């Protein structure tokens, strides 16, 4: 060993000392680290605010319902419908003397629930309407479908065709989850018909990593009017969540419309924190897209926007407009489905193509905070332009409001609304009108007419109409003029959902019809008007659909749906109701306000179901005229190739 340094011996000693020093240093370091870790955990512990709540494991059901209500629910008045809330009016879940056992469901009751003329697959679960369109003589309807059960899951695209949007024929599944980009779900999408005859389908796929992406698909054979087979674009996805958008907040692309540059424009709903937004993309070939900087619209506090829809309506004509229509006498409609509260909202406004902006006419009633298409169960709705009859048609998903046990037992869940035409209400200018497509009237069979029935306060009158589970009812009601003048003014705001329903009598209401009622009125579903004379003498009218007495079963929704409906000077109160087993669709004032509800009677079924007219107003007679049609079945069934087309 070379000794360069005179310190070598010292170095040896020094390094020996250094080794020991190193050990000491390490030990000291170790202790300090330990001390700092102890300090750290003490710091964290002191930050714990342990709020101890005595566990209520043995509390009764009614207490728990109340607690559930205050913590979880935003309140029935906010329109939040939660299955666990629906028992509040059913005696808080306690056993009620006289109420039948909790599961009276048997096959007779359950099989009665299937509808006769509303679209539904032969079995299993369905949700959103997809890609509705008219092509080569057939109306096409696609839908979210679970081939494996009566609950949401394993979603693929079901398919059906019809000549008239009423008589449907089931076709094979259009698309299944067979690609990495939709293996976790072939979700909602829309169709765009190009002027050159191409059919473009854009849809959301949930990828194998549960990222939401947009995919392109098109018919395998445009010469097949039934469009049975579909091809997915080999280079899918065509859109992935952009920067700033979370991978699970990007779904439901719309039908495209042409810009003045000749490009196609679509919008896709999303959210930023709690603000619902609509992203905009332009494309020339539906394969590559240019993200537009501006959001079509954004409304704080509304949460995720699903199933955005955007279309023009005519201010002059009674007809519909193609989605790309440009002109002067046009208003635009923007519609969103709020993930938060399961309701569909729309707003009328103007569209500025250059600025890529939709501005609602009434910002206080912008999308998500203003008008709803329907005040009952109606979600994920979508319109399309029907070029055959020059009208805009609306589809809406109507879910169940019973228990999963019943859905599993009956083997299916959900129906679609009867398709509705949508147009601007020219008389008010501030809302849309919806009305069942005229083709539904082809199902009308025998009718019964009742003219100028005078119904006294407190009266309930049975209407003699044969059967009462498949009906089309058109009714008009009038209140006594003298009663209107004499009635005191009130500044009470009537709210269907908290009103207590048809049994709570007021000066000028409720009055209307009991549908799906049994002879003893142990079960009945009132659809009724309630009029209030405001402090300025002006009348305010509400239309409600009351589920609270609709069934003796206590595992179904018992809520009261409805809203105020504008009634103009000189108008009678008009009501149309389609009754089809477990679905009741009500339209007030020509479709100004619509309410769809699901009803699950246990006694008022088959021949035992009846129709009543009632007047629970205290101060006025009600004069009613109505026509009631028996409705035929639509015989919705699978398509057989040897059938006449």
């Amino acid at each position, binding site marked *: 060993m070379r000794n360069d340094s005179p310190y070598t011996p010292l170095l040896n000693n020094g390094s020996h000392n250094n080794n020991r020093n190193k050990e000491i240093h390490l030990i000291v370091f170790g202790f300090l680290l330990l001390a700092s870790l102890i300090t750290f955990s003490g710091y964290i512990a002191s930050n714990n605010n342990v709020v101890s709540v005595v566990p209520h494991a043995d509390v009764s059901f009614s207490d728990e319902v109340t607690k559930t209500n205050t913590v979880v629910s935003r309140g029935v008045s906010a329109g939040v419908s939660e*299955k666990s809330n629906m028992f509040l009016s059913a005696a808080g879940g306690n056993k009620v003397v006289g109420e039948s056992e909790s599961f009276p469901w048997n096959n007779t009751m359950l099989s009665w629930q299937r509808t006769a003329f509303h679209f539904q697959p032969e079995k299993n679960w369905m949700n959103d309407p997809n890609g509705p369109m008219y092509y080569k003589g057939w109306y096409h309807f696609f839908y979210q479908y679970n081939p494996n059960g009566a*609950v949401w*899951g394993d979603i693929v695209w079901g398919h059906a065709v019809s000549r008239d949007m009423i008589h449907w024929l089931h076709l094979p599944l259009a698309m299944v989850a067979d690609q990495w980009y939709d293996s976790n779900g072939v979700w909602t999408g829309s169709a765009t018909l190009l002027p050159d005859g191409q059919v473009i389908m854009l849809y959301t796929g*949930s990828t194998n990593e549960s990222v939401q992406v947009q995919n392109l698909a098109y018919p395998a054979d445009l010469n097949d009017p039934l469009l049975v087979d579909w091809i997915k674009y080999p280079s899918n996805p065509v859109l992935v969540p952009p920067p700033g958008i979370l991978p699970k907040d990007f779904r439901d692309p719309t039908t495209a419309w042409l810009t003045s540059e000749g490009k196609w424009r679509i919008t896709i709903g999303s959210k930023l924190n709690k603000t619902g937004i609509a992203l905009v993309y332009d494309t020339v070939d539906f394969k590559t897209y240019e993200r537009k900087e501006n959001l079509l619209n954004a409304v704080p506090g509304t949460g995720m926007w699903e199933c955005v829809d955007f279309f023009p309506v005519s201010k002059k004509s009674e007809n519909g407009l193609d989605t790309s229509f440009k002109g002067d006498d046009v208003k635009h409609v923007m519609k969103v489905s709020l*993930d938060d509260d399961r309701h569909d909202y729309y707003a009328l406004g103007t569209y500025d193509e250059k600025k890529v902006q939709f501005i609602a006419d009434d910002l206080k009633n912008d999308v998500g905070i203003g008008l709803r298409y329907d005040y009952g169960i109606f979600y994920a709705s979508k319109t399309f332009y029907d070029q055959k009859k020059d009208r805009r048609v609306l589809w809406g998903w109507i879910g169940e409001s019973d228990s999963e046990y019943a859905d599993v037992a009956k083997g299916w869940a959900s129906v679609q609304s009867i398709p509705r035409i949508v147009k601007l209400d020219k008389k008010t200018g501030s809302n849309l009108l919806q009305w069942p497509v005229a083709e539904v009237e082809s199902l009308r069979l025998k009718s019964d007419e009742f003219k100028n029935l005078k119904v006294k306060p407190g009266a309930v009158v049975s209407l003699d109409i044969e059967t009462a589970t498949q009906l089309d009812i058109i009714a008009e009601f009038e209140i006594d003029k003298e009663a209107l003048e004499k009635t005191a003014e009130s500044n009470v705001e009537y709210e269907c959902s908290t009103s207590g329903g048809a049994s709570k009598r007021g000066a000028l209401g409720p009055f209307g019809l009991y549908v799906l009622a049994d002879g003893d009125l142990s079960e009945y579903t009132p659809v009724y008007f309630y009029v209030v004379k405001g402090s300025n003498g002006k009348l305010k009218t509400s239309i409600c659909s009351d589920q609270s007495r609709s069934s003796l079963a*206590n595992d179904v929704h018992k809520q009261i749906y409805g809203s105020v409906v504008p009634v103009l000077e000189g108008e009678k109160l008009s009501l149309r109701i389609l009754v089809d087993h477990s679905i009741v669709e009500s339209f007030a004032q020509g479709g100004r306000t619509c309410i769809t509800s699901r009803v699950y009677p246990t006694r008022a079924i088959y021949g035992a179901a009846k129709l009543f007219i009632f007047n629970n107003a205290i101060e006025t007679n009600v004069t009613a005229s109505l026509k009631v049609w028996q409705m035929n079945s639509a015989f919705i069934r699978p398509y057989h190739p040897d059938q006449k087309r």
Partner: protein
Amino acid sequence: MTMLKPISFLILIVCTNFVVIECRTIQPNDENLIQQICKKTPNYALCIQYLHSDPKAPSADVRGLALIMVNVMKNKANIAINKIHQLIGKSPPDQKEALDNCADNYNAIVVADIPEATEALLKGNPKFAEDGANDAVVEARGCENGFKGKSPLTAENNAMRDASAITAAIVRNLL
């Protein structure tokens, strides 16, 4: 120069302390998220207890906590089903129908509600998870109400109902 080592050790310790104390903001989740979430449920203590029983909870996000609760729901349902099977064999005749109904209720929870909730959470469509959890409350209540006299399943139904209500409340944060 010999001072350099202890000084550098000291600096290292101070830096470590600093980083470690600030860790509470860098970590993706910690005790505070669980507490925040549980405060918004109908039963704070039960929520804390259930979440803490899963080792994945401290590092889970809201969706992960919801999935943990769905698993708790599955356990409660299986406990109830086992008890129902035990009881069905030796029950008095006036309870037979109610027990059969309970079997159907819990079957719905296990074949429909729980798979629906799991899939909905995994795939990013949380409203269907809320549906599934809310329906499980309905099913438990239905089972309990089906007994004319005293229910032999009150404890199990309450546990099912509580776990499901907590799950629904947690899922609401995702909407």
